C-alpha cells in the first residue's frame, strides 16, 4: 500500500508539472497584458512602459519566464503579486482558511444529507423516495450562483436568519456566516450523491446475498446496514470523492456571490487583472487538492472493498 501511495504521489507531481506549464501558457496566450492593467488606461510614456516590462521580466522569452517562475516555485517562492506587490505565498495563506472551512462544511453537507437521503430513499421507497428523486433533480438543475442569490434573499434578507456576507470570526460566527454559502456550494453535488446512493442501494437490495441473509433470519436493520448500505457505499465513495475535489474549484462562484475572501474569489480577481503569479499559484493548489482527494478516495476504496488490490502488486 505504501508503494501504491508513493507511486500515486509521483504521478501527482508529474500532473502538477504538466498543468503548471499549461496554466502558464494559457495566461501567456490570453489577450491583454499585465502592464496595461497596471497603468489602468492612463497615457504613459513608452519609456515608463518599457521599465515596467523590464522590472517584471515581461520581455524575456516564454520558456525563460516559465523556467524562472518554476524554479521559484520549487524553492518555495511563489513570486509577488503584480497588483498588490505582496508575497503570493502569504497572500494565499491568509485566504486559504475561508475556502478550507467553506469546502469542508459543504463536504459534510454532501456526505450527511446526500448519502443519508439517498440511502433512506433506497431502503424505504414510497413517498420519501419520490421526494428525493424530485428534490435531487431540482437541486442538480439550479445553477450555483442562482442558488446563492435565492438563499440570500430568503434566509438573510427576508427571514434574517443568517448574515448576508463576510466570513465571520471565531468558530460559531464563522459557521453562521458560512452556512448559506456552503449550502449553495453543496447543493448540486449533494443532489448527484443522493441519486447515485439511492440507485446503488436499490440495486444492492436485489442482490442474492441480501435475500440469503434475510432467509437466515438476520434482522432487517442489520441486513440494511451491513449488507445493503455498506455494499452500496462502494460506488458512492467514488462519486463523493470526485464531487468534493471539485468543490474547491466551485467555491470561486460562491465566494464571489457571498463576497467571501477565499482563494476562489481571489482567483477571479487575479484572472481579471492578469496577475500571473497569483493565478498560477491558485491553479496549482486546485490541481494538487484534486489529486490528493482522489488519492485518499482510492486508498479508502481499497479499505472498504477487500477485492480491490493496489495497482497490480499482487494477483
Amino acid at each position, binding site marked *: 500500500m505504501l508503494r501504491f501511495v508513493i507511486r500515486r504521489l509521483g504521478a501527482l507531481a508529474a500532473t502538477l508539472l504538466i498543468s503548471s506549464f499549461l496554466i502558464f501558457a494559457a495566461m501567456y496566450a490570453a489577450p491583454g497584458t499585465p502592464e496595461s492593467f497596471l497603468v489602468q488606461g492612463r497615457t504613459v510614456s513608452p519609456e515608463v512602459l518599457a521599465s515596467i516590462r523590464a522590472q517584471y521580466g515581461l520581455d524575456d522569452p516564454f520558456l525563460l519566464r516559465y523556467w524562472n517562475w518554476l524554479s521559484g516555485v520549487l524553492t518555495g517562492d511563489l513570486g509577488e503579486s503584480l497588483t498588490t506587490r505582496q508575497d503570493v505565498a502569504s497572500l494565499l495563506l491568509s485566504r486559504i482558511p475561508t475556502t478550507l472551512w467553506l469546502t469542508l462544511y459543504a463536504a459534510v453537507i454532501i456526505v450527511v444529507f446526500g448519502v443519508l437521503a439517498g440511502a433512506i430513499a433506497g431502503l424505504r421507497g414510497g413517498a420519501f423516495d419520490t421526494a428525493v428523486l424530485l428534490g435531487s433533480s431540482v437541486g442538480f438543475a439550479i445553477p450555483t450562483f442562482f442558488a446563492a442569490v435565492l438563499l440570500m434573499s430568503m434566509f438573510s434578507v427576508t427571514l434574517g436568519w443568517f448574515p448576508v456576507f463576510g466570513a465571520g470570526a471565531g468558530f460559531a460566527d464563522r459557521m453562521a456566516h458560512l452556512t448559506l454559502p456552503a449550502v449553495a456550494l453543496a447543493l448540486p453535488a449533494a443532489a448527484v450523491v443522493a441519486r447515485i446512493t439511492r440507485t446503488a442501494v436499490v440495486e444492492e437490495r436485489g442482490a442474492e446475498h441480501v435475500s*440469503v*441473509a*434475510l*432467509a*437466515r*433470519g438476520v*434482522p432487517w436493520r442489520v441486513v440494511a446496514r451491513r449488507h445493503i448500505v*455498506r*455494499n452500496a457505499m462502494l460506488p458512492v465513495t467514488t462519486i463523493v470523492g470526485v464531487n468534493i475535489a471539485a468543490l474547491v474549484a466551485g467555491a470561486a462562484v460562491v465566494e464571489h456571490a457571498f463576497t467571501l475572501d477565499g482563494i476562489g474569489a481571489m482567483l477571479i480577481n487575479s484572472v481579471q487583472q492578469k496577475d500571473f503569479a497569483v493565478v498560477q499559484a491558485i491553479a496549482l493548489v486546485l490541481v494538487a487538492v484534486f489529486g490528493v482527494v482522489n488519492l485518499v478516495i482510492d486508498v479508502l476504496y481499497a479499505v472498504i472493498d*477487500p477485492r480491490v488490490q493496489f495497482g497490480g502488486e499482487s494477483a
Partner: protein
Amino acid sequence: MNVLELDDVRLDLPSKRGDRALLRGVSLSLAPGEALGLVGESGSGKSMTLRTVLRTEPPGARVTGRVLLDGADVRGLDAAALRRVRANDVTMISQNPRAALNPVLRVSQFLVEGLCDARGESRDAATRRARDLLARVGIADVDRCMGSYPHQLSGGMLQRVVIAAAVASSPRLLLADEPTTALDVTTQSEVMAILDGQRREHGMAMLFVTHDLELASAVCDRIAVLYAGEIVEIATPAQLHAAPRHPYTRLLLDSRPSITARASELPVIPGRPIAAYEVEGGCAFAARCPWAAPRCERDEPALVHHAGRATRCLRSDELADELAGETPGETSGETSGETTGEPVRDRETEATT
C-alpha cells in the same frame, strides 16, 4: 407429526399479460429426518415450491394453500415469527455459494451473523461454534478460512461454508436448492457427501431440489417428480427406477445417458417443456406423451395414492407394464446394435474421412 406439509399450494405471479401460474396445487409431506427429492425440468416449479416454505418467493407473487411447519402455517406468520422460524427451524442452501455470501465480508462474519444477529447468541460463543462447524464440514485450515473473503475461496470451499452455516442452528428442515449445480463434478460428490453426513448427524429432514434424478436417487428417501407446476409422481428411488408409473418419469429415466451403452443419439423427450401457466385443461403432459389417449387432452388427472406411492396419470394402471419395460419406438434390435457399438463406429469413420 410431519415436519413439513404442503397442502394444495398454488403460486401466481402477476405479469403484463395477466397472472401467470407457476405452481398449480402442490401437496407433499415430509416426516422428521426424511429426505425428499424434488425433480423436474427447468420451470417445472421445484425451486418455487421450496421458496414458499421460507416465504422467499419473488415480490408480488400470490400464494394460496397451506404450508405447515410442525403443524403451524408458515404463510400466516407475522414478520417476527417468520424471522424466528428462519433463524431456528428451517435453513436453505442455494445453488451458487458465491452469490450467497456478501463479497465484502469475511467468512467469519457470515457464519457468526447467522448465530449472533439472527439467534441472539453471544459473539464469542458464535465464533467458537463457527470454527467447530468449519472443521466438521472438512475444512483443514479453519483459521485461514475464517479470515478469508469469499473471492479467496473456491466454489467447493464456499459451499462447505454455506452448509456449515445451514446446519449451525440444528434446524428441523433443510431446504437445498440444487446445492451442487454450480460446482465442478469432483467437488459435487464431496459436497453432497458432507451435506448428507451433516443431515444424518443432526437428524434434519431435507427437501432437495435437483434436475439430477441419479443424485436425488442416491440421497433421498422419496422422490417427487414435478411437471408444469404440479407433482406427477411420488415414489421411492427403487420404485421409480424399477417401475415408473408416470410416462414423464419413464422418459426422464430414459433421457439419462447410459454409461454401459453407447447411444447413437441421446434420447430426448419430444416437444418442449411447457410452463404451468400454459396448461389449458386436460393432462399437462398430454402434448408430449407418446401414450396420450384422446381423453388425456380432455380430463384432468388427479394425484392418486396407491401402495405408498402416488401418480397423476389417467392411464397409469393400463400402462403399468409398458412403462416398467421398454420405451415405445425403440425396438430391442436397435438397442442391441448400439450396445455392440457397430453403427456408432461406422458413423465416426464416415465423419473423419
